[in-house]
């Protein structure tokens, strides 16, 4: 789990046998730095770097423009921002042992509704951005209420709200695409939230915001009451309920956080791409969930890692950009993502079996 074990009894250092409930337990020797960062995360960073180098080599072999070009990093990051917010949110839901398949369409619904208000109804930009977050949050409240308070299974509930999100987005915009303003146009300043590739500033605002958001999420998950109870109820909800904890409230909160972050993701999506089409968004669910699982968050609940999710998002983003840059068909990305997810889930199940 997080961080190194605090050893209050001092004497029993790693490597020695210790008695535990009548059995001998041999502590495995571990490098303290490895232990602190976590073996999984080191592997993940390795995968990330390898993948970057691999695409570099592929581009060189196939005689395409060099992959080691800052513009590729820019487009990978553009992809990482909105995907990152989706993945951060769904990490909380998966930590409770649930799942949310509505995040991608909810993000699009937020972007469509708020964009339509901006472009067609002349609502001030700042209000539209808040509406975007609000729409996402409302979907989170809906999912959270249905799952936590009415005991509906999260899988089917979020499938249904995915339909709702797609439908509402389409109906609201009368099935028209919404094109958010360019940076140079009036109301275009929201794009500077992303600001990479536009040239004026060297500070990658989007990256800074994404890192800060990840740190906040990590703190919420690991240091606050909400995160503690979310993780615990993901592990054994009934035991937590019988400890007198308001499990419904905390479980619903995970979905609300997830929805809110999907609403924020919408802003970063339009910040990067400006155009939103109704009726789409499902593929981002899979990518966001894949990022979490890859990062070591257990689909069974109770174990979650924001740091892992962060790196997982970067891996998916590099993959997305790399495949295009190397001139492969984009659909190959789904094949690779699929394989990665299977490997990650298998590893999770193996490590669970070992622990028991």
């Amino acid at each position, binding site marked *: 789990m997080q961080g190194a074990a605090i050893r209050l009894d001092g004497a029993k250092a790693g490597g020695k046998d210790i008695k535990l409930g009548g*059995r001998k337990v041999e502590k495995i020797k571990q490098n303290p730095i490895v232990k602190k960062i976590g073996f999984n995360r080191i592997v993940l960073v390795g995968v990330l770097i390898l993948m970057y180098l691999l695409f570099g080599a592929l581009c060189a072999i196939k005689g395409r423009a060099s992959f080691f070009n800052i513009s590729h990093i820019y487009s990978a990051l553009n992809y990482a921002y909105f995907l990152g917010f989706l993945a951060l949110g769904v990490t909380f839901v998966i930590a409770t042992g649930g799942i949310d398949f509505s995040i991608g369409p909810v993000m699009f619904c937020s972007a469509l509704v708020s964009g339509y208000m901006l472009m067609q109804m002349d609502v001030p930009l700042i209000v539209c951005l808040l509406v975007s977050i609000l729409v996402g949050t409302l979907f989170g409240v809906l999912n959270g209420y249905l799952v936590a308070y009415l005991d509906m299974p999260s899988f089917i509930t979020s499938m249904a709200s995915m339909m709702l999100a797609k439908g509402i987005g389409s109906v609201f915009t009368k099935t028209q695409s919404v094109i958010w303003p360019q940076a140079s146009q009036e109301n275009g300043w929201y794009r500077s939230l992303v600001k990479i590739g536009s040239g004026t500033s060297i500070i990658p605002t989007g990256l800074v915001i994404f890192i800060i958001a990840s740190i906040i999420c990590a703190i919420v998950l690991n240091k*606050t009451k909400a995160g503690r109870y979310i993780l615990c109820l993901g592990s054994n909800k009934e035991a937590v309920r019988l400890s007198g904890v308001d499990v419904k409230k905390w479980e619903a909160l995970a979905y609300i956080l997830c929805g809110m972050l999907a609403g924020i993701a919408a802003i970063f999506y339009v910040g990067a791409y400006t155009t939103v089409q109704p009726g789409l968004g499902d593929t981002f669910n899979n990518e966001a969930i894949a990022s979490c699982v890859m990062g070591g968050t257990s689909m069974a609940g109770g174990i979650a890692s924001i740091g892992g999710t962060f790196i997982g998002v970067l891996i998916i983003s590099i993959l997305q950009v790399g495949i295009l840059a190397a001139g492969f068909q984009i659909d190959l990305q789904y094949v690779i993502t699929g394989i990665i997810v299977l490997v990650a889930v298998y590893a999770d199940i193996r490590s669970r079996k070992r622990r028991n």
Partner: protein
Amino acid sequence: MGEIILTMKGIDKSFPGVHALDHVNLEIRKGEVLALMGENGAGKSTLMKVLTGIYKKDSGTITYEGKEVEFENPRAAQDAGVVIVHQELNMLSHLTVAQNIFIGREIMNGKMIDDAKMNEESIKLFQKLNIEIDPTEMMGNLTVGKQQMCEIAKAISHDAKVIVFDEPSAALTEAEIEELFKIIRDLKKKGLGIVYISHRMDEIKVITDRVTVMRDGTYVGTLITKDCTKDDIINMMVGRVIYEDPKAASTVPKDAPIVLKVEHLNAGKMVRDVSFELRKGEILGFSGLMGAGRTETARALFGADPKESGDIYINGKKVEIKDPMDAVKNGIGYLSEDRKRFGIVVGKSVAENTTMAALQNFMKGLFINKKKEDQVSWDYVKSLKTKTPTVETEVVNLSGGNQQKVVIAKWLTRDCDILIFDEPTRGIDVGAKSEIYTLMNELVAQGKSIIMISSEMTEILRMSDRIVVMCEGRKTGELDISEATQENIMHMATQRK
């Protein structure tokens, strides 16, 4: 003394980080019941899993009917006639009795399953065991005792020559245990080799011929049951003498205030018009047979299950308890009989479990004060003598007794005045058991009050100041410890309407 049918010699088995079996020997003879004893974690279950092919041994030999064997999987063991009746029953509750017995090898009529034939065959099996069960009944509608009989019928339907019973009596009533023993004696007469794993000393003396004792994954020795005393066996298991004397008289002063009063509690079929009082510093035992509604009463009182009616007074004031949150707010803590499901979060650390019910006291602003949390948890680890290397250790790594202590620490951290112990020592070994008892006595001495539900008569008589007896959802009697005997408790416990 019968001839040897199965020998295990020098069995060795390691798991990553754990040496579970260290050159263990075991000898099973025809027409004999062999008790396999040891504290939890001694390796009994592991040894039986090696025998029946669930685990692969690292070294050692198994000789069965004169030949060296190694069963690939439980199925192969079954086919050879070595079967295990598990502690947790592996039954599909929505299938009929006959369908359960023949699962995996259904009797076919062409391409179709022949239910009629399976029912017939099941009846034949039950006749062999001299029991009466309707093979067309849904498994889920049977009592635990009856389900176990079906499991035994299933075992003998494999032409078993060796049957292992893994704590068969844990969930049975006294009457059902009697019936089980009758069956075991029958099987013994037929020349089967039987291994009987149990924590209950009395049963060992009654039903077994020899006792093999294990400790910490090693073979300690084998005794002839009729030549040894309880203390002999316990000594081999733990290396110390434990006496279990019943409490002579209540230690609660007559004028101790009433902290909890329950009036006319009703919840479903299992809790009918239950009323009782609990005094400060008292241990109130709840006795009764399995299915008497004691756990249900506790859960309704605690708000874990909805109740239909009834009033609850705490320190004379009427309180509304709709869910566990209300109960905890009113200072009630519940220690479930099923720790792993309802008591602890096994994947989380000792510290996280300790502060689970009282996390609000460990906040520094928005954040959890980890230092204080570890400190308090460690204080409880020390004062309750919980065996754990650190407070960061996941509870899954602790033994049953130590897990129970973590649950106790959780409620003490919350400062609960009323604690409901539901089967406090179930699945806990003898040594840890007496530690739990000492702890409970210390708690009441500090002015806490305890409701203790227990199916073990010795536990009820040893710990309680007063005893409430239930039968089929109703309270059928109340006794002061000075007037309680096994006989009059049992009389009340079987007092059906």
